[in-house]
C-alpha cells in the first residue's frame, strides 16, 4: 500500500513538472540602448504616460510582458551605442535574442552571417516590407532581405530658440524663422544674429565629438550631388565639394558663430539656457524640448521653440543624412515557441510605432506617418519632410560608425585649425580607405 502511494505521488509530481514546463513562459533576451530610467518607468505599463526615448521604450516592453504571459522578455540596457559589447557577445556565442541596431550598422553583422533574415518571421505575423516607409525599408534591407524591424527614421535638425530669432530679426511675417538658402546667407544671418543678440548663432557639441561633424558633411555632400561612396569600399573626400563644407564650418568656428568647447550634455544645457539660436541635434530631443517650451520660465518658453530640417544650402538634390533604429535578431538555433515569441515582440513594436514616434523620431510605417494622430503631434508638420529628404549611406558600406569617427576626427582638426583643410580631407580619405581595404 505504502509503495503504491509513493509510486502515485511520484507519477503525480512528474506530471505536474511536465505540465508546468509546457506552460512556462518563453524566455527571450533583449538588449537595447536609449538609456536607463527604471526609477521613473520601471513598472509603468501605460505607454501614453511615458515620455522620452527611455521612458517610452521601457514602458512598451513592460506592456509587452504584461500583455503576453506566454513570453517573458528580460532586458539588458547598454550604453549607447553598445556595439563593442554586442560584438564581444557575438564572438563569445552569447548574443541576445533581440537587439537594437542602427540601420547603418546592420551590414557589419549581417555580412558575417550573425543576424537572422526576418522576412519569414515578419510575414508570419502579418508584417510586410511594403508597410514600411521607403527610408525605413531601404535602411533595413541588405542583399534583398530584411535584417531588422525598423522602428524609426532619425536625422539631425535645426532646433531653434524663437525668442533669440525674434531679437535677431530673423522671423518671417507668419512667425516662422528665416532660414538660409545658401552658404553666404547662412554666414550673413549668423553675423546678424551675433550683432543683434550678442550670442552665437549655433550651439554645437564640438568637444571631442565626431558624429555631428560627419553627419553635417554627409548632408551637405548629398546636397551637392557628390557621389562620395560610389564604390562602397572606397570613399572620395579629397574633393572640392567636401572642401566647401569643411570651409563653411571652419568659417562658422573662426567667426565665433558657434559655441565651442561643449560636449553633448553641455550643449543641450546651453541651448535650454538660451545661450544660442540654433542647436544641431537629432529628432530624439523634440519631445523634451517641446516640453521645455511649454514650461513657464524656461528660455524656450519666452518666445517659443521651432524645429526644421537642415536648410538647403547648395543647388543639388534636396536631401539630408538620415539613419534609423531597428530591432535585429541574432542568428541561432531556436524552438518554434521562441521564434513565435520573437515574432510577437516585433509585431508589438510595429503596432505601437506611433507611441515610439512621440519621441520625435519619424515613424517607420506609412500608416503611422500619414495618420492624423502623428500629424497632430507638435512640430511634426515641419519635420515630416525628412521622411522624403532622409538619405543614408549606401547599404553596402561597412563599419559606418568607425568611418564616422575617422571623418569626425579629421573635420574637427580642420575646423578648429589644428590641421589644414586639404590635409585633413586627404587624411580622412586615406584613413577610411585603409580601413575599408582591410575588412
Amino acid at each position, binding site marked *: 500500500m505504502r509503495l503504491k502511494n509513493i509510486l502515485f505521488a511520484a507519477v503525480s509530481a512528474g506530471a505536474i513538472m511536465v505540465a508546468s514546463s509546457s506552460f512556462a513562459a518563453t524566455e527571450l533576451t533583449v538588449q537595447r540602448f536609449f538609456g536607463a530610467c527604471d526609477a521613473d518607468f520601471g513598472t509603468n505599463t501605460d505607454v501614453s504616460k511615458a515620455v522620452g526615448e527611455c521612458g517610452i521604450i521601457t514602458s512598451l516592453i513592460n506592456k509587452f510582458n504584461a500583455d503576453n504571459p506566454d513570453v517573458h522578455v528580460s532586458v539588458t540596457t547598454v550604453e549607447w551605442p553598445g556595439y563593442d559589447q554586442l560584438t*564581444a557577445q557575438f564572438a563569445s556565442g552569447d548574443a541576445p535574442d533581440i537587439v537594437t541596431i542602427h540601420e547603418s550598422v546592420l551590414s557589419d553583422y549581417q555580412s558575417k552571417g550573425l543576424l537572422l533574415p526576418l522576412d519569414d518571421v515578419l510575414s508570419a505575423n502579418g508584417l510586410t516590407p511594403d508597410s514600411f516607409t521607403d527610408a525605413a525599408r531601404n535602411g533595413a534591407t541588405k542583399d534583398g532581405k530584411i535584417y531588422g524591424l525598423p522602428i524609426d527614421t532619425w536625422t539631425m535638425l535645426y532646433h531653434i530658440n524663437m525668442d533669440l530669432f525674434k531679437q535677431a530679426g530673423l522671423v518671417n511675417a507668419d512667425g516662422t524663422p528665416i532660414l538660409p538658402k545658401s552658404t553666404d546667407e547662412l554666414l550673413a544671418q549668423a553675423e546678424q544674429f551675433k550683432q543683434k543678440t550678442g550670442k552665437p548663432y549655433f550651439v554645437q557639441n564640438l*568637444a*571631442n565629438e565626431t558624429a555631428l561633424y560627419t553627419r553635417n558633411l554627409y548632408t551637405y555632400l548629398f546636397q551637392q550631388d557628390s557621389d562620395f561612396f560610389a564604390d562602397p569600399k572606397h570613399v572620395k573626400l579629397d574633393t572640392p565639394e567636401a572642401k566647401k563644407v569643411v570651409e563653411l564650418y571652419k568659417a562658422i568656428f573662426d567667426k565665433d558663430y558657434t559655441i565651442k568647447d561643449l560636449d553633448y550634455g*553641455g550643449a543641450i544645457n546651453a541651448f535650454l539656457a538660451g*545661450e544660442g539660436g540654433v542647436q544641431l541635434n537629432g529628432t530624439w530631443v523634440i519631445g523634451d524640448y517641446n516640453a521645455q517650451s511649454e514650461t513657464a520660465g524656461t528660455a524656450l518658453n519666452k518666445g517659443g521653440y521651432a524645429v526644421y530640417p537642415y536648410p538647403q544650402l547648395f543647388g543639388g538634390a534636396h536631401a539630408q543624412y538620415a539613419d534609423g533604429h531597428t530591432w535585429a535578431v541574432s542568428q541561432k538555433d531556436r524552438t518554434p515557441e521562441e521564434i513565435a515569441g520573437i515574432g510577437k515582440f516585433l509585431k508589438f513594436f510595429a503596432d505601437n510605432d506611433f507611441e515610439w514616434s512621440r519621441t520625435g523620431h519619424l515613424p517607420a510605417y506609412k500608416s503611422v506617418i500619414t495618420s492624423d494622430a502623428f500629424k497632430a503631434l507638435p512640430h511634426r508638420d515641419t519635420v515630416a519632410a525628412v521622411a522624403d529628404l532622409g538619405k543614408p549611406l549606401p547599404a553596402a558600406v561597412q*563599419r559606418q560608425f*568607425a568611418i564616422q569617427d575617422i571623418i569626425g576626427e579629421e573635420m574637427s582638426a580642420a575646423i578648429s585649425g589644428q590641421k589644414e583643410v586639404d590635409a585633413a580631407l586627404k587624411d580622412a580619405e586615406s584613413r577610411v580607405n585603409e*580601413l575599408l581595404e582591410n575588412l
Partner: protein
Amino acid sequence: MAEQLTLPQTATPAAGVRVPSADIYAPKWRNFIFVAPYLFFFTTLLVFPLFWGIWLSFHKADTFSTGKFVGFGNYIRLFNDKVFLQSIWNTFYFVGLTVPALALIGLFLALCLNRRTRSAAVLRTIFFSSSVLSVTIVTLIWRIVYIPNNGLLSIVYGWFGATAPSFISDPNLAMIGIAIATIWWCIGLPMMLFLSALQQIPQDIYEAAALDNANRWQTLRSITLPSIKRTFVLVIIIQIVLQFQLFGQPWLMTRGGPNNLTKPIVLYIYDTAFRRWDLGLGAAASEILFILILIAAMAQYLVTRRKGEL
C-alpha cells in the same frame, strides 16, 4: 623513500656505515600539485594569450575569423599609421608628465606628513583616499571640474571675470588635464612608499646631524634623500609601468580627442581591435606595447638586482 628514512633508525652507529641523509630540497613531483592551480591560470590566462596574440599579429584577422597569414604586414601598416605613431608619442608624453610629478609630489607630501601628529595622520588618509576610487569616479569628478560653463574651474574663473582654460577640448591642454586627474588619483601609492622608506631611516643619524649643527636643508640633502634613493627609483619604475597602460581616463574624459592628441596606445588597440574589428592590427599594436613595458620591467629588474650599489 620510506626505506631511506627508516634506515638510520635501524642501522647501528657502531657499524660505521655512512647512511645518506634525506635531501629535503630534492625535487619531488608531488609538490607540483601545490603550484598547479596557479600554473593553470597563469598558462591559460597569460602565457597562452601572449603567444596567441603574437600569432594573431601576423594574420589578417577580425573578431569573427582568423584570415590569412600576412607576415609583418600588420606591423608595416602600424608604422605607416600616423594615429598609431601619435598614440606612441602621446603615451610617452603622458608618462613624462605624470611620473616625475608623482615622484616629486609624493616625496614632498611624505616629507611633510612624516610626523607622529594626529593632523599628519588625518592628512595622510585624505591624500591616500583618492587612490581607492575607480577610474570612472575619478574621471566623473574631474569632468565636473573641467566642464565649460558650469564646471568648478569655470565657476572659480568666473569670480575673477576670466574664462577657464578648456582642459577637455583644447589641443594643448587636454593631455595635461588628464595628467592632473591621474596625479590626483595615483598620488597615494608613491606617498605611502616614501613614508615607509622615511620611517626606516635610523633616528640616531638625525641625532648625530643635529649635534653637528646641520640645518634642515643639509639634513635633507645629506641624510634623507640618499637614504631613500632606492625607493625613489622603485617609485619611478612602478609608475612608468603603470602609466604606460593609460586607458580609462582618456576614454572617459576625451575619447582620445581632440584630433587623437590624448589617444594612448591601449586606446588605439581597443579602437582598432574592438571598434573596427581589425584584430590582427590591434594584436600587432599590443605586441609593440608589450615590448615597451618589457623594457621598463627589465629596467626595474636590473635596478632592484643591484641593491648594494644604491
